[in-house]
């Protein structure tokens, strides 16, 4: 279990992470979602002991994590910079990783380099943005660290390379279950791999749930404005659009089949709200409200 209690990260007077409490059972794939500046990277940096929190504690299996060598060896944090000397060759980066990490799998690293078509003789400085990201993924996956944190490690990668990343992530996790925390803005393409989703907003946890529970959690009700208005009374509204006499209201609410049947007989249609839509509605700055008439 990874336990965060009151974790706060400050930069001068700016509070990036604001007293976060989280319990993260190990052995799962977590998706960490949040808008730019929501505190994702600061939170992950604290979790990986790259940054000492201004307040609060982080415990990994009961042991205080900060600068604890036993915990550090078990933790691999990959961020968009490769945290290396740019004149190093890719091959050297992998060799260092092998020295540092008891669980390093050199054969798997070589296979991944091949998959991403990266020449190990190249210097880190000569790699494109997408290739740097791919090297980060190689370092992250081949480390097989019990706690692997991948912070937006897809920047600059094309759709084919990202698909290869997701495939490897799942296959390697199935073969070697461990705790993986992945932060991303590309929610739709990777959400099916997350067992749990954490959404943070303005430095606080907005939601921490099983991903599958979020599917079907929201609904969009479309139809004649009057009928929609009557139907949504008293329900939590996430967003609303109207055009002429037709309106579409997105609700943070799961209708029963009977309620759907009743709505349909009043001329309404019901549409699903995907995880990405739900995220957009929950984190957009418009305040949430309850429909009244």
């Amino acid at each position: 279990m990874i336990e965060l209690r009151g974790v706060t990260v400050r930069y001068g007077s700016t509070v990036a992470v604001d007293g976060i409490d989280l319990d993260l059972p190990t052995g799962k794939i977590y998706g960490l979602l949040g808008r730019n500046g929501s505190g994702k990277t600061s939170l992950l940096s604290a979790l990986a002991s790259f940054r000492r929190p201004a307040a609060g504690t982080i415990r990994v299996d009961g042991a205080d994590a900060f600068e604890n060598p036993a915990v550090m060896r078990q933790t691999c944090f990959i961020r968009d910079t490769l945290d290396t000397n740019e004149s190093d060759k890719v091959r050297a980066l992998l060799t260092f990783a092998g020295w540092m990490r008891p669980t390093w799998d050199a054969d798997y690293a070589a296979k991944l380099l091949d998959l991403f078509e990266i020449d190990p003789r190249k210097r880190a400085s000569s790699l494109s943005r997408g290739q740097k990201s791919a090297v980060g993924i190689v370092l992250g996956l081949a480390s097989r660290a019990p706690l692997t944190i991948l912070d937006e490690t897809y920047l600059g990668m094309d759709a084919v390379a990202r698909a290869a990343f997701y495939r490897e992530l799942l296959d390697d996790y199935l073969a070697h279950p461990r705790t993986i925390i992945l932060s991303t803005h590309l929610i739709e393409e990777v959400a099916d791999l997350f067992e749990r989703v954490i959404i943070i907003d303005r430095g606080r946890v907005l939601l921490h749930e099983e991903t599958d529970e979020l599917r079907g959690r929201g609904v969009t009700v479309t139809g004649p404005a009057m009928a929609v208005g009557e139907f949504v009374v008293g329900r939590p509204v996430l967003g609303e659009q109207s055009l002429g006499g037709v309106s579409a209201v997105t609700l943070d609410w799961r209708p029963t089949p009977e309620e759907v049947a009743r709505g349909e007989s009043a001329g309404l249609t019901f549409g699903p709200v995907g995880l990405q839509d739900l995220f957009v509605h929950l984190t957009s700055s418009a305040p949430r409200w309850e429909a009244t008439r």
Partner: protein
Amino acid sequence: MFDDRSPIYLQIADGIKNDVLSGSLKEDEQVMSTNQYAAFYRINPATAAKGFAQLVEEGVLYKKRGIGMFVSPDAREKLRRERRERFFTEVVDPMLAEAKRVGIEIDEIVRHLGGAR
């Protein structure tokens, strides 16, 4: 394969029930392991496991310790019975409501059904 209308574990359970009903999964036949299923459909294995657990709970599948999961001997008959009970409320009633909306008379439907006999 999966959509956003409902949790994936329920969609997995429905898919397997349909396979049992159609006979493409036979009684006492072994089903995929949760890891195989997760790898095949590119989903988290815990989600797949939840779908299978739901089917065990409903008696559609049974577990053999250390071997895997199998289709229950009476699963097909049970599912057919359940679906038949729901057929009129879930299939026929919405059809009649739509017919009414677009002005199709019951007699016209009966004539059409007669042609399918």
